[in-house]
């Protein structure tokens, strides 16, 4: 029998109180772990906005958004009431906690239990600076009003057009990221350079867009001409002394790279940028947006560089730049999309190729601009992109939930390290006179100075062997679990991951694998072109290893796209959808599974080899289950089976947390929240794979 319940009043949405309750629980936990206190030390906008206020807005705003969002069709009064109620109640909870903290005689007890707790009331962190006598009134009252206000604002905002909302949210998020990373990204580009690039790009775009009856070639010529003109102007300016300390283009010498190039290369860069602008007028919608966002990002980097830190003006400019580069291209978009659709297929292929080549060029020069720190982050992102693509073969294609992917990663890393580093194996192969009297470290020291060390093999020789080793190991591991399904399969693979780690730190394997000390130092890869009269290039920094990763990512993307559209890829996807039906269609499940095991392990092995060579050392603790979970989460968040999904997922789940080291311990928390929210809003992932259109001939053809 149903218990008779008092119906909620008509104006109260059924979501409001439950959502508020859950959010309040999270809020209490976050507060007790000292989030606000810790974040207060981190400025987003110097002296104006600290991170704890951003956190406050998020903690109050996100739940309120989930409350008002389903009410989008409701009358304004109802939305306002529910939104304000949610925000207000949450703020009330927070205010109560601050009040209790203030009335405690000492917070030692609190700090004893919650070790990260930082006091909130003395400095008036959440109360607009009011403390002591003013804490409750007006301080806490203001806090509660702020909560209600945020809720009410969102209740009004929910009716705004989607484009405006997403622009506001994305710009604000980018501003916060820029603010937190101000010190690292200040050195990306100088403002004059960024402006020169933006003007050249817009010039190329404008000329091509408004050229009367411009076909592809005319547009390209127009864009190149715009680039030439820009190059000429810059030449005039530079010759006229604009680069002098008080000149028009004078800028931070440490970051001025483009303007200080020799004349011809500088001109070529600008012509290419003009050309890129012209091609943007024909680009597919997503690329069109991305191109402008990239340009906007450069200018924002420039502004940050010019002001040195994120102050009020910089923040405002950054916000405007991002809002502009998100909104303005929308206005240009219809024409570009129409032109793109009207292109004859052959030309469209050409244009797409040019744009991808341009993107590749940007990717290749990026580390020069981005500096050590960010390049390091990008390296890590690419490491995970390679692994994500590999794991996608298993999970997104073959439908095998592999929780022990780290095993293959570790096997690749150890195989490569063993083959390139002095060890039990390699010493057996080196004549004893060479190593007599040397200790392990000293044998490698040579490598550090640019000498490939005393391994049996160089990195390049060891790499294919490492890939092969982990592919074979992946297949061997696959054999016992071939007949397992679903949950059982997942659990057994989970075990494999742990077993691998345990083996690497076991004392039995110590002579070979080094136990907890791991293997180090591992020689860095060297590209030795001296045989053909070229240079010897040491890939010993984040910026140089970057190129290995780019190669790996391109290879992985190539392999997966080729396989996905082939008989093999279809068989995998059929297997994932319905094993029995796939078998009835003649798909050999065992063979296809082993193939998936081998290929996905090969990619993990490749990443492992790169990883060891970049870090110059590997340790069992680098190969925990967290790696498996990270890779799995990023492919799920991105959208199983989708390559753009892997890229976006890796940027979000690996890149952002790595870049936002400021958030320290809250990274994992933010990570979890992000996962939950993303899965609630987009259960298919951010960019699910689109159905393959094989039956319809490409649009724009002879229709």
């Amino acid at each position, binding site marked *: 029998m149903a218990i008779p319940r008092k119906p909620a009043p008509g104006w109260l949405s059924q979501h409001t109180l439950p959502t508020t309750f859950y959010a309040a629980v999270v809020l209490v936990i976050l507060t007790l772990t000292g989030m606000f206190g810790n974040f207060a030390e981190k400025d987003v906008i110097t002296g104006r906005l600290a991170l704890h206020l951003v956190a406050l807005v998020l903690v109050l705003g996100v739940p309120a958004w989930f409350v008002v969002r389903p009410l989008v069709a409701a009358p304004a009064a109802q939305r306002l009431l529910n939104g304000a109620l949610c925000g207000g109640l949450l703020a009330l909870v927070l205010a109560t906690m601050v009040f209790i903290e203030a009335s405690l005689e000492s917070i030692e007890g609190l700090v004893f239990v919650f070790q990260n707790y930082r006091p909130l009331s003395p400095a008036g962190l959440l109360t607009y600076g009011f403390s002591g006598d003013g804490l409750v009134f007006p301080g806490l009252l203001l806090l509660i009003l702020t909560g209600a206000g945020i809720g009410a604002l969102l209740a009004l905002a929910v009716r705004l057009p989607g484009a405006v909302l997403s622009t506001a949210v994305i710009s604000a998020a980018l501003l916060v990221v820029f603010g937190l990373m101000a010190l690292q990204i200040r050195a990306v580009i100088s403002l004059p350079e960024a402006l020169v690039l933006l003007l050249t790009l817009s010039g190329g775009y404008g000329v091509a867009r408004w050229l009367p009856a411009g076909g592809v070639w005319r547009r390209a010529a127009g864009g190149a001409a715009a680039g030439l003109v820009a190059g000429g102007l810059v030449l005039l300016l530079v010759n006229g002394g604009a680069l002098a300390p008080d000149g028009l283009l004078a800028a931070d010498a440490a970051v001025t790279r483009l303007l200080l190039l020799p004349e011809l290369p500088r001109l070529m860069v600008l012509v290419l940028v003009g050309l890129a602008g012209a091609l943007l007028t024909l680009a597919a919608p997503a690329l069109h947006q991305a191109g402008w966002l990239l340009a906007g990002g450069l200018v924002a980097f420039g502004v940050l560089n010019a002001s040195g830190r994120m102050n009020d003006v910089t923040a405002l400019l950054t916000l405007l730049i991002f809002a502009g580069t998100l909104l303005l291209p929308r206005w240009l978009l219809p024409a570009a999309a129409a032109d793109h659709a009207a292109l004859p297929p052959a030309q469209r292929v050409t244009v797409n190729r040019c744009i991808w080549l341009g993107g590749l060029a940007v990717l290749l020069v990026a580390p020069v601009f981005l500096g050590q720190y960010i390049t390091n982050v990008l390296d890590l992102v690419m490491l995970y992109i390679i692994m994500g693509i590999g794991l996608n073969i298993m999970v997104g294609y073959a439908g095998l939930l592999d929780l022990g992917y780290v095993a293959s990663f570790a096997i690749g890393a150890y195989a490569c390290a063993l083959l390139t580093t002095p060890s039990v194996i390699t010493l057996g192969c080196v004549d004893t006179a060479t190593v007599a009297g040397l200790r392990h470290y000293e044998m490698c020291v040579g490598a550090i100075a640019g000498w490939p060390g005393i391994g049996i093999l160089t990195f390049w020789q060891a790499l294919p062997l490492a890939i092969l080793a982990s592919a074979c190991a992946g297949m061997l591991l696959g054999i016992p679990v071939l007949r397992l399904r679903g949950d059982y399969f997942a659990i057994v693979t989970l075990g494999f991951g742990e077993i691998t780690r345990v083996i690497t730190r076991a004392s039995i394997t110590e002579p070979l694998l080094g136990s907890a000390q791991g293997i180090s130092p591992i020689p860095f890869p060297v590209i030795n072109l001296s045989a053909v009269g070229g240079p010897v290039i040491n890939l010993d920094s984040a910026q140089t290893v970057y190129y290995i990763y780019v190669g790996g990512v391109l290879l992985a993307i190539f392999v997966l796209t*080729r396989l996905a559209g*082939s008989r093999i890829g279809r068989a995998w996807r059929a297997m994932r*959808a*319905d094993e029995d*039906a796939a*078998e*009835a269609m003649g798909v050999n499940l065992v063979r296809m599974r082993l193939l998936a095991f081998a290929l996905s392990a090969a990619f993990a092995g490749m990443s492992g080899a790169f990883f060891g060579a970049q870090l110059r050392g590997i340790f069992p603790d680098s190969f925990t289950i967290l790696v498996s979970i990270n890779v799995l989460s990023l492919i799920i968040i991105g959208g199983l089976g989708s390559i753009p999904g892997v890229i976006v997922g890796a940027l979000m789940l690996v890149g952002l947390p790595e870049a936002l080291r400021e958030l320290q311990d809250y990274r994992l928390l933010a990570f979890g929240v992000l996962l939950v929210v993303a899965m609630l809003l987009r259960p298919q992932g951010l960019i699910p794979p689109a159905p393959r259109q*094989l039956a319809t001939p490409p649009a724009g053809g002879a229709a």
Partner: protein
Amino acid sequence: MSETMLAVRRMTKRFGGLMAVRQVTLEIPQGAIASLIGPNGAGKTTFFNCVTGFYTPEEGDILFRGASIKGLRADQIAWRGIARTFQNIRLFGEMTALENILVGMHPRLKGGVLAALTGLHGGEERRAIARAMELLEFVGLAGYGDYPAVNLSYGLQRRLEIARALASNPALLLLDEPTAGMNPGETDEMMVFIRRLRDELALTVFLIEHDMKLVMGVSDQVSVMDYGQKISEGTPAAVQSDPAVIEAYLGTVSHTMMEEFDETPLPPEARG
């Protein structure tokens, strides 16, 4: 008729204590349309599952074009030329209609990993897509090629499943209740369609069916199962008047079904 397409000899399949198929012997000549009927739970689907390699029968033998296929895996049997559909539709939902058919062609295509990476299978792939388009048209799904299979209506999904089975160019096609869930109009279309399968594609068709009108209308040969045993076999007319069959149906099925069974007019060729 000529060659025997499928010959099952004294086949038995047990599930624990339950004998789902008991000592069944059955032959289907090449080019025939044969039906398997019987009350629910009689063991018909289990029979199909044994023939297609999903189960291995404990006793007996299964000969396909004279060679034993007993003990082979389902995919090996598919390679040899037996294709099937399922009682409850089992399409690859997220994949498009066209891709479903391309998966059906799996045994007839060669491209492996190397071919995929080097692009050497381009010609084969184009021909496969062209053939898949033909099949879509043949089953009346022209224009639906790029729809994910889940988005198709029930009737279209049934046809797509048949097209997928046809894609491997089978010699023998097994259809498990192809008209389940269809209305009378769609059932009539299916009857015509099954004849076309034999006449235009020269297939041997073996179907499980509950709709007596269809069974009596298309079959050259009808076999009846009850409690795992074959209790009758022959032309539709002979089976319809077999007392053992009437007994089995009276014992288990409602009277309305029996009436339908009685009133179904026999097609001329079945009478003669």
